């Protein structure tokens, strides 16, 4: 059972670091509280919806910012949606980037928006990677016969 112990420790350390580094905030913990035996894949399902939704939004943002005449209200609407969904799953850095992005939309600052989009993509793919690692660790723990530690 040593392997389970090791994996569990890895999981706890990784989860803690994600929180300390601002990738995931308390809202993620709230989601975990909603997962139980009757809904064992709840967090994974919500996060998958988030991934699909986010990639669609990032494409929409890229398209909107490439227009001859940029409709900043439309851009802002996409960012607002992204801010909402990232907030709902606790993706704090993504959410904060959205806040900054909205300021540039308000100023109708195209360069600022384009820069924000790049940074937003960067933050999104970072947190996506982290979450996939987290889920992988959970699967490994369960496959090794252990239970996933509860954080917080």
């Amino acid at each position: 059972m040593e392997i389970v112990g090791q994996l569990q420790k890895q999981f706890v350390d990784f989860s803690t670091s994600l929180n300390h580094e601002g990738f995931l905030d308390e809202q993620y913990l709230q989601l975990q509280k909603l997962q139980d035996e009757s809904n064992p894949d709840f967090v994974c399902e919500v996060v998958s919806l988030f991934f699909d939704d986010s990639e669609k939004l990032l494409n929409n943002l890229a398209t909107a910012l490439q227009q001859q005449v940029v409709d900043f209200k439309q851009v802002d609407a996409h960012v607002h949606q992204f801010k909402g969904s990232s907030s709902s799953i606790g993706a704090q850095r993504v959410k904060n980037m959205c806040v900054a992005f909205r300021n540039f939309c308000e100023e109708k600052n195209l360069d600022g928006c384009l820069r924000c989009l790049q940074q937003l993509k960067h933050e999104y793919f970072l947190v996506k990677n982290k979450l996939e690692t987290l889920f992988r660790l959970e699967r490994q723990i369960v496959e090794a016969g252990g239970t996933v530690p509860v954080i917080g």
Partner: protein
Amino acid sequence: MAVEDIGSGCSSSGDQEFHVLAVDDSIIDRKVIERLLKISLTAVESGSRALQYLGIDGERSSLGFDELKVNLIITDYSMPGMTGYELLKKIKGSTKLRKIPVVIMSSENILARIDRCLEEGAEDFLMKPVQLSDVERLRDFMLRGGEDREVVGCKRKTRDDSCSSSVLSCDRDHPLSPISVSAMAHCKPISKRSRLLATD
């Protein structure tokens, strides 16, 4: 069509089944609300779909329910097409539906918006992301029959007072005027909103 009907409607009271209509354009938020409420819930993606479901959009109710029974409507404020506020007005303007409590959710803490919704008859205004504690209060409210003002009431205060008190019972003998609804709104012990208002 983004209508999800989640079965199994037993609430913690045992005998009663509650049906909640949730309205939100975000599929992520619909999924979270569904889980938070953990009771019989129908989730739709827009105000117009909600009105269709409720049977007041001029067309026949599209989902084949013989007897519509909705105990609570919880709706997002910012939605394309029809805002939660517009949906609220339509519901409160309908003799058939105006008694159903409506709760508004928003990610933006805008006092004028909160006031407007409460004055229009919204039961409560929740800040997103909605949390378990918010939903537990809603569920208690519904278990008490949904019309008991005590649960969402608080001692009447002026707008200047700080709002750190826990729920106290409201004076049920006095009908609530629009002004007192607003005053109550500012001191509702919704943890996030109280915190946010305090920092204004």
